[in-house]
């Protein structure tokens, strides 16, 4: 067995684990760290349910291997806000941006990344920013309205 020491900062707390170097970040988060907010769905980066932030950028945790995020700063949905809800989460609640909720953590992490880069996105920019997040329940209507609510009122 390869002893590989993985160290990272997860939601602001230092984590150190002995894992296989090719272990998926998704497995580390859910199984080793018990952070089940990040979801498992397609397992090949096509649905966005597992999106977390790595050094401030959105990535699919099912595609990132342990050695690729060693030393990184990782934020999951659980670390998005401490105490009060983040404005993106508030907007999702107000506009019904979720139904079953399974795509929601990854969706919210993508929205946050989008707004970090483009605080006032147009509809086209929102659609591009969320093009890697599949939702099967909402038809994306509530999601678009939620993002527009916290992204200002940029015209198309």
């Amino acid at each position, binding site marked *: 067995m390869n002893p590989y020491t993985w160290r990272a900062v997860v939601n602001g707390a230092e984590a150190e684990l002995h894992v296989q170097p090719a272990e998926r970040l998704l497995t580390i988060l859910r199984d080793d760290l018990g952070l089940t907010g990040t979801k498992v769905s397609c397992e090949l980066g096509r649905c966005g349910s597992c999106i977390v932030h790595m050094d401030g950028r959105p990535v699919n945790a099912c595609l990132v291997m342990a050695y690729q995020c060693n030393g990184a700063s990782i934020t999951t949905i659980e670390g998005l806000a401490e105490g009060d*809800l983040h404005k993106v989460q508030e907007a999702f609640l107000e506009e019904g941006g979720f139904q*079953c909720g*399974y795509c929601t953590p990854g969706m*919210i992490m993508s929205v946050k990344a989008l707004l970090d880069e483009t605080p006032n996105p147009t509809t086209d920019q929102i659609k591009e920013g969320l093009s890697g997040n599949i939702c099967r329940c909402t*038809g994306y209507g*509530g999601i678009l309205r939620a993002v527009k609510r916290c992204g200002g009122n940029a015209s198309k």
Partner: protein
Amino acid sequence: MLTRGERTSHKWRRRPDGPDKVTGALRYLTDMSLPGMLHGKVLRSAEPHAFVLDIRTAKAERVPGVAAVITHLDVPGLNRFGIVNPDQPVLCEDRVRYVGDAIAAVAADTKETAEYALSLIEVDYEPIPVVDDPELALLPESPKLHEGGNVLHRTSYRKGEPEDAFAGCTHIVEGTYYTPRQMHAYMETEGGLFVPEADGRLTVYAATQHGYKDRMQLSRILGIPEEAIRIVSSPIGGSFGGKDELNVQPYGALLARKAGIPVKLHNSRRESVRAGLKRHPMKIVMKTGIDGEGRLIAHEARITADTGAYSTLGAPVLNFATEHASGPYRIPHVSIEGVSVFTNNGVSGEFRGFGGNQAIFAVESQMNRLAELAGMDPWEFRRLNLREPDDPGPLGQRILPSAGLLKAWQSIADSEVWSRRTRKPTESEPWIKRGVGAALAMHGSGLGYGIPDPGGGRLSLTKEGKLEAAFSFEEFGQGITATLELMLMERFGCGADDLSIVIGDTDRVPHTGSSTASRSTTIAHIALSKLHPQLSERLIAGASAMAGVAAERLMTGPGGIWIKPDDDSGSSLAATYKELAETLGGELAFETKFDFPVTPDPIVGGHYLYTCAAVAVEAEINTLTGAVRLLAKHHAVAAGPAVNPMGYIGQIEGASVMAQGFTLTEDALMLDGHYKTENLDNYIVPTIRDVADDFTLHAIEELPEGDPYGPRGIGEVGSVALAPAIAMAVRDAVGKWVNRLPIPREELIESFASQLAGKTEGAGAT
């Protein structure tokens, strides 16, 4: 209510399950784990059709870390499951009929160990020719998948003398329509945690849409009483009908009981694609005739459904398709025949729309073609032939009258989207063509005559002073908990924090049937109509005694019972719910049982409550590639009051996009009994980039005077009429009829060279 999605009233509330969902705090059943639990994996058939000559598990059993290996020899009770007819083996004995058939299962300390052990199980297959075409499956020389042959079910409905009536028709249209093998693609795959309890009971934490039915099926498989099993079945990350039937539960239950240790299973997406249910692909042949004025005279439909390897709900789906194959029209002569056929193609089963989507695509497409032959506007053509509110239902049964159909029709006629049909913009690029189409449907809710469709509910005041409602429903995104909260707040005038809503746990709720068939809103409404007055009266009587105030002066409200305000004083609290709970002692509970409303006429499968819907769509076709893009949608839904506006809009929008996938991009392709689209990289569901920005929903909330049933379910109806509306838009744009879904680009692509050649000639070439 006319909306583009914005909040509409005081009933617009944040969902009670919202905060946990947006923070990731909610534990879905597949997120659960226990220290020391085992991981289960199922060995599925390598062959789509074969005899199984031998199964050898000895090597797997010897792998360190493996706690249990099971085969059919380990099934103590009935080695079969299936909601209607249990004909699917839990673990195959001597024959496999599709690549998802289960042969063995392993529980081990890690997932990797379990997978490794699985790889050591040896199975001797003797392949049988694969039957992958339902029409070939019907031929006498095809291998028989089951004892009774390859026919699961036949349907037949006849009215008048259609064969003779065609002779008198001015125009006749014949069409053959094909619909795809659509996959539910819920974001959370099947899975759960199975816990053998110290007292000998088994707790099953696994998704379903009918906890009590799962309990019955598992008790039959395990050979233990139902009361020894507890099913916790909520919350769920999407289902759309796909998780109603059993899936991983038998394996989890058997492994957990054999090992005596909790077992977790969670299907990978590939496993889910391979073993899970799909929508019935159907081939529908129709022949429809009209007279010189455009009135429908005769209609014939022949439905062939590919039900795959096992029954599950194949028969009711065919019944439903048969019932919906004449649409909401008055047709004097009708002949519908259907056959549902076993093949080695996956397993087809319950899926939102339930056979309606396929039949409605076909019949509405017929109407489009007939209107054109008659030289009539296609929407006026429908008006001319529309059933009247008091007409019998499509199978001749009495149904609940409603003016909803005409109102839905009118909504489209008045819609801005429909008006674009006659005013098309000039395109900047000559290969972009625009078109507008619409379609109309009525869709039955409930399970239909002859099928047990139990409803009920329990309403109580708990010891803690909460008003508690309990139903055996599951929350899989549709918002049932939010709807129940709204219904209770409306009736009691109380706050959300006065409430306790209990669902999805067979130990804690009465049996109120399944969360399927757009039935739960209706069931809840009927149950609360009966139970609320009973509890309310009791609470008021109790408060009256406690406070010494006459009952007529009291009313329920936030926190407790209030004295109604009058000229002398404002309202004040007579007794809190908590005080009442303490005083009245113990639980104060009222229960009711009733069946979902059903037609009085004994027509098997016939429905009584219908939701009516129509949709208009504007589409753009790029003839360079044959791609269809949706620009605008206007949905009209007549389903009674919108109890939960946020939920209502969400369900229609979501169903509409699911229908868009059904029409344009989704097909779980199979070749020789093997799935070729094994994951979401090749099975194409719509993303946010595919969705039209221009969306309008017109919720028609009026019900006939004295309607006893209140709000209808709307979970399915948003998905049933979009396909033929898009087909009409395509015809409008490029002059082609499409009969096959998803619409093949090959049929709509046009050579740019031909366009150029046309131009050059037209420009007066020498």
